[in-house]
Each structure stands twice: as C-alpha cells, then as structure tokens.
C-alpha cells in the first residue's frame, strides 16, 4: 500500500502526470460536452434562474429592503444551484464512464489516472461555471434594474461562491471514485451541510462536551470537515462591508489547497482501482 501511494504520489508530483495539461484538457472538454447535455444541468439551471427572476416580485418591500432581499435570494440561489450542480455532476461523471465503458478506450491511452480525475473535476467545474455564469448575468441585470448600476461586490461574492463549489465538486469527484452516484451525492450533501454549520454547531459541541472521547471525536470531525462558511461573502455584498484582502487571500488559498488535497486522495484511491 505504501509503495502504491508513493508510486501514485511521485507520478502526480514529479512525473509528467498532473502537469500534462493537454490530456487533462481533452478529458475536461469531453466532460464539459457530456455534462452540458445532461438533463440535471438544464433543470437545475432553469430552476435557479426562475428563482432569481422571481425576485422581481418583491415589490411589496421598500426599495432599500427590496435590494437587500434580492441580493440575499440571488446569492443563496447561486450557492445552492452551484453546489447542487457540483454534487450531481461530480458524483455521476466517473461512475458513468466506468458503467458505460467509455473509460476503456481512454485508459488504453498514455494518460495517468490522476490526469483523468483532474480532467473530470475540471470538466465538472467548467459546467458549474457556465451555470453560475448564467445565474450571475441574470442577477447582475436585476441589480442594475433596481439601482441602475453594476455592483463590483457581486463578482467577489460569486468568485468565492465558486471556490466553495470547487471544494464540493472535489469531494463529490473523490467519493465517486469508490461509491455509486447515489451514495456519493448523499455523502457529499451531508458533508456540504456539515461544512456549512461546522463553526457554529461542531465548534459549540466541542466546547459543551465534557467526555474526553466524544470531545476528541468532535475535534477530529471538526478538523476534517471543510469550513464552507468562510466563503460566504453575502453579508459583504448586501451591506457593502469591505473585506480585508489578507482574509480573501487566506480563504482563497484554503479553498484551493483543500480541493487539491481532496482530489489527491481520490487520485491515490483511483490509482489502483480495477476497472
């Protein structure tokens, strides 16, 4: 096992592996083409767009409150829409390729499994990006129709939402390496919920628990779970509160590193899987 991990690791880090972008891009492009034809992509995008567009009906509120509620609803829609897309597409990509056997001709090529996983992940993220982009355009148009201008905070909030979705997609991709799409989607959704309430719920549990074993258990869960709440810049968008650049940089690095680490686990696991 140790040799396997070291073998895959060295291939990923030192060899041509993960840095051969051409092969990764081919898999990502294929994945994007495939995902963008899936019904789940069309349905989720349409539902979220409809939800965002329905914010137009908030005319019962005063103008200031209406804009705040609009931003709140739209950001929540983008976050949930993006996460739902990441969970649905991320959990189906690899199992579908294995099930439909389209993976055989691909794996018969000089492509490492780490490149394949990276390509599938990128394909999922590109598809999610397209969906989020469509939602963001409608959202930006709505804000513009309310206050007559473009809100630069919107781009920042959406960018960090995409980083959050990136972690969700990485988790779904990694779990899908060894589980069925349904199990992957369920587990990823659980992790997503736990990651969102991590600070408030698990942090409080650790403080409140007196029992040593339970405290350690909650501590482990707390540290393994991603902190998804830190990507939420909704308040900053709604209230135009400035966010320190150092905080943004830290959160961005955290998101990218967490996603990379989760994907690395998937690569190690998939490296020796029989197909």
């Amino acid at each position, binding site marked *: 096992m140790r040799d396997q991990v070291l073998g895959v690791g060295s*291939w990923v880090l030192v060899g041509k592996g993960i840095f051969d972008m*051409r*092969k990764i891009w*081919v898999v990502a*492009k*294929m994945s994007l*083409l*495939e995902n963008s*034809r899936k019904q789940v992509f069309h349905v989720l995008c349409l539902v979220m767009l409809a939800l965002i567009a329905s914010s137009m009906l908030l005319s019962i509120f005063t103008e200031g409150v209406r804009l705040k509620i609009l931003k709140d609803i739209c950001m929540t829609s983008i976050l949930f829409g993006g996460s739902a897309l990441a969970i649905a597409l991320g959990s189906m990509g690899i199992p579908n390729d294995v099930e*439909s*056997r*389209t993976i*055989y*001709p*691909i*794996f*018969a*090529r*000089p*492509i*490492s499994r780490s490149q394949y996983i990276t390509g599938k992940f990128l394909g999922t993220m590109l598809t999610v990006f397209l969906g989020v982009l469509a939602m963001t355009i409608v959202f930006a148009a709505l804000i513009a129709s309310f206050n007559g201008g473009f809100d630069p905070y919107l781009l920042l909030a959406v960018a960090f939402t995409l980083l959050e979705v990136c972690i969700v997609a990485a988790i779904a991709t990694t779990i899908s390496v060894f589980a069925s799409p349904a199990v992957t989607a369920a587990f990823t959704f659980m992790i997503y919920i736990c990651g969102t309430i991590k600070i408030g719920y698990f942090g409080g549990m650790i403080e409140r628990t007196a029992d040593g074993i339970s405290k350690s258990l909650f501590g482990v869960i707390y540290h393994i779970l991603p902190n998804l709440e830190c990507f939420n810049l909704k308040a900053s968008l709604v209230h135009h509160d400035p966010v320190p650049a150092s905080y943004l940089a830290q959160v961005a690095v955290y998101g990218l590193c967490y996603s990379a680490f989760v994907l690395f686990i998937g690569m190690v696991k998939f490296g*020796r899987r*029989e*197909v």
Partner: protein
Amino acid sequence: MKMSKPLTTDNLTKQYKLGKKQGAKTALDSLSIEVPEGVIFGFLGPNGAGKTTTIKLLLDFMQPTSGSASVMGLPTSNPATRKLVGYLPEEPYFHRFLKPIEVLSMHAALAGVAKREIPKRASAVLERVGIAEYADTPISKLSKGLTQRVGIAQALIGDPKLLILDEPTSGLDPIGRRHTTQLLVDLRNEGKTIFLSSHVLSEIENVCDMVAVLKRGKLVAYGEPDKVRSEESFVMVQTSKLHPETHERLRFLDVIIEPFNDTALLKFDRNNLYRVMLVLEGLSLPVYNINTQRESLEEAFLRLAA
C-alpha cells in the same frame, strides 16, 4: 542492440476474491507467452477462459495477483507503454453525441499526436477503415458495424506498434469482415504486431501467424496454428444415402456420418480407411469423392476447450 518483444507475459496470474467463505477464483493461471514482432497473434478461448482478464492486465486496467507483463520491454504499469498500443474493446463505447472525427481527434490528442497533424491523421484513418463518408455523423446515428469501424480507427489513430483487438469483426457484415481481415494483414505487412482475441476461428486461421488457446485461465496450446492443430489427419468419403443398418456397422469403426444433400459424408481416422472401404464395397455403395483433411483450427479449438 537486442529488440524487446512487443508483448511478453511471465507467469501472469489473476485471482478474484469472492469472499471469506468462497475464497478466491483464479481467472488467469500462470500465463507465459511471448508475442514476436510483426505477427498476428490469435488469442482464443471459450467464454470465461480469461481472455478479457488478460487484456485488462496488459492495459493495466487491473493489477495481477502475481507474475508480470511487459510491452516493448516496459512493464505494463508504466503509462508510457500505452503510447505504443492501440486498443479496440470488444464493443467499443463512445460518447454517443460525438462524431467519428471528434472521437478520433480526442484519442489522437490523448495518444500524443501533434495538434497540427490530427485532422490529416484522422481523415486518413477514417479512409483506411472505409468510413470517411460518416466522419461527421453522430455515433448515435451509426449502425453497430460502423461503430465497430470507428473503434478500429480509434485504435489506429496513434500509429501504435502493437494493436490489441478484442473481437475486431464483431458486428460486421461479410464485406466488413473481409475488409477488416485484409486490413489486419496489411497492418502486419507494415510491421505492426497484432494481438487478436476472436471467436471467428475460420478468420483467425487464415490470418494468424501464432495462436494461444486458454481454457479456464490456463494456457492449453501455444504456437503456430500448424503446431496447435493435431498432426493426425482424417479421411472424408462421400457416398450415397445410407441405410440405418449400415450406420450401425460404420459406427463400430468410429465413423462420423453427416448427411450432405442426397448423399452422406463419412469422416474417420485414416487408419480405418481400409476397413471402411471394405464395408462400402461389401454393401456395393458408390464412392463419389474421397480426400484427406487435417484438423482445422476450429476443430482443434473445440478439442482443446472441451
């Protein structure tokens, strides 16, 4: 400098764990073969003999329980070996929304073909397998036979030294079969090595330079087709329709009787020729035709796999 064999396996073994109580099932048992350069190597065996397992091991889709395999001297676990290999799965599956030209472009890129060379190479390969006119038709609109040809084109796109083909004529009509068989011979003549798994033994017999026969994971025959077939030849005699009583008398001499139009074909070991002819003469039966035949590869396969 000594050239490495295109394909070598050394005591290649694969066991599947079935569970704690059932233990393990041996799908492939100590397979040791060498495929020389520039030959068509027929890999035969009934269903469940371990052919697909072997191919999966050669392509590193799974890892052997013990033993090893190499392509051009490199272990199959090294992804670089697959740059030298073109693979056609038993039933090629591609994304159905893609067109053949897109499938080939994708596989050419994965095989490391230079970007500017891809369109030219893809068109040439489609032309070669006889489906140039379907280059822009989505796979979902193609018949099984045409999809199979896309699969063959896909295997050829990287200009591999070794082709691993699993049932290449599956789903093809007689013209397609003839075309593919001729293509394999042409590729061999160009110096490519072809590792071919097939059930259509008559085709294999005509084109294969070497064969290996697997039975329940074990190698039961290996070598040139002439060496795999039995040395013993048998005699075929065509006579008139036989009376049931004559059937009984001939069966004592281990004669196989097959009706053929209004006549009967008698098939027996050549050592029994004198005695069979005596019986036919005694019954005043005519002999229309007589010839000796050697065991076909199909008959050898049936004998070995039985």
